[in-house]
């Protein structure tokens, strides 16, 4: 039984993976515009992000949502002929700072920012200050996000802010930091503009700055 775009959104949001994927395939086979499936995924992830922010959804839900969306994109990939330029709220450059290779927190923040309409450029882990500087110069994001798990990443965060200052780019971006060992005191120490307690906070900060 083929569902509708609405039932697809519900299945994704309801974490019914098998149903969601079957539904998506059936819609595609019935000749529904693949872009509508992409739009359905986007709407579902937005709702999932909201539930995460409200404390109703947690990591299993975010991870499963990511998997479902990835599979749906793979399904429609070959059928999309023209890229429809997506309207994005703004651009965020994000990375785990030098010396720190933890990426789970950063990935969750990227996922939620993306779900909330931001273009996210993820520089990965162990990112030296120069790479942040380069990315800001070339990509002109409105927001830079720095992640860390370790206390030893405080200095690299501070250095990155300083490097942006020295490159004359500091005024062009808002900088947010996050990670288990950060707090507002570390925000002040590093010279960042804001600190986020969790991934939901990162989204509100970015929204607040970009006016989405």
């Amino acid at each position, binding site marked *: 039984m083929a569902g509708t775009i609405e039932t697809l959104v519900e299945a994704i949001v309801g*974490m019914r*993976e098998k149903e969601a994927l079957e539904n998506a395939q059936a819609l595609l086979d019935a000749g529904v515009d693949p872009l509508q499936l992409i739009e359905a995924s986007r709407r579902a992830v937005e709702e999932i992000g909201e539930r995460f922010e409200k*404390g*109703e*959804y*947690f*990591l*299993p839900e*975010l*991870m*499963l949502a990511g*998997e479902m969306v990835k599979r749906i994109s793979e399904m429609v990939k070959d059928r999309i002929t023209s890229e429809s330029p997506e309207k994005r709220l703004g651009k965020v450059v994000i990375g785990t700072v*030098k*010396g*720190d*290779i*933890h*990426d*789970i927190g950063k990935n969750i923040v990227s996922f939620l920012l993306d779900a909330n309409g931001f273009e996210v450029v993820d520089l990965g882990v*162990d990112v030296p200050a120069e790479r942040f500087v380069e990315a800001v110069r070339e990509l002109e994001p409105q927001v830079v996000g720095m992640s860390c798990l*370790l*206390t*030893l990443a*405080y200095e690299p965060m501070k250095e990155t802010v300083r490097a942006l200052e020295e490159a004359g780019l500091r005024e062009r971006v808002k900088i947010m930091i996050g990670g*288990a*060992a*950060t*707090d507002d*005191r*570390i925000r*002040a*120490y590093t010279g960042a503009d804001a600190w986020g307690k*969790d991934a939901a906070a990162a989204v509100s900060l970015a929204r607040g700055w970009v006016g989405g």
Partner: protein
Amino acid sequence: MVAEGRRELSADEKYEERFKAWMSPANVQFASAEAEKAYKERVQLIKDAVELKKPRRIPVCPNIGFFPANYAGITAQEAMYDYQKLGMAWKKYHEDFQPDCLASCLLATPGRVFDILDYRLYRWPGHGTPPNTPYQCVEGEYMLEDEYDALIRDPSAYWMRCYLPRVFGALEGWKNLAPLTDLVEMAFAGAFMVPIGMPEVQRSFEALLEAGRAAVEWIQAAGAIDAEVMGTYGVPSLIGGFSKAPFDTLGDTLRGTKGIMLDVYRRPGKLLKAMEKLVPIMVEMGVRTATMAGHPMVFIPLHKGADGFLSRNDFAKFYWPTLKEVLLGLTAEGLVPLVFVEGSYNQRLDFLADPDLPQGRIVWMFDQTDMVKVKEVLGGGACFAGNVPVALLKAGTPSEVHAYVRDLIEKVGQDGGFILTTGGVVDEAEPDNFRAMIEAGKEYGA
């Protein structure tokens, strides 16, 4: 069935025996009568806190990582490779700060052993991370999603033939080995030995022998440093053995965060079964390592069940039941689980107050959980410890640290059953702030 002749000791009797052993450590030679007295007094402070009594003063036991290296001006890399520098730094830390517990230099771990084994699960200073960062785990799916049945059938064989060849480059050849349980008859034993003759397996055993020699070199040097520190400054170690919550055993370094979180939805039955299988293994690890150390405490760091990771429902279904079984298994042996509750547990503190857990036999160490709430929920039932933030120790001022400690002790430390510690593992701190924490702890905890 009655055991042959000897009556099995009760959990409480075993507990007393273990504390007795800890009070008089076989491997420590005290430098003076004062040092020995200080050691015994400190053990008593901790014992009183565990038993929810009001100790003579609150023990100040910071949770230490690479801070002694930073403080003494050596790199993390040097601490992992140069045992002379390791000893200099760790002794200096105890000499200068006089904490109530040992910061064991064993936690710096032997870099050379991992070089030889090509440990791929971690990066460490000089081996994938800068010289001054601590070692870090490389997140990954080291156990594949379709391997649950193999793990459940025979965890040891799974570890040996699937997991170890992936996480140790030098042991890649072990994927060719047969399970040791093949060795039951002469007619089977010849075939079992054949893969061991393969060049890559031969090389793996050579590497293992070399790593073993390096490990002995390390334990002789580092063990002597710890023993000397304990004997000189009269500080007991807070950690004896170690164990883990089964969900973390699977989630941290086998399936990885993403893997295990997907398993919660995709294969909950197998996940639960695998964790059940790990319970006795985790209990045995805790009992054995603590017994070897002659120490009652078993350190258990908690990771993936914290607020924000799992819903309360999933915590109740997937995380807590097998952790609880591990805790019960350890306390039944007279051991004291020292549970490091990383992150925050504000939304699930009530689980920790489970009435099935024995009173006064567990220590919960908190990181970012609201300590006032902790006292409300756990006070009088279990000892709790916390939680001077590492961010404060790095970026605060001595007077702020002082004020934090005073406030904490006033709010939660007045009725006993409390140990002062840091929220996280300290790798880096301003020395003056660190000193302020120790001094304030001793001043207000009296």
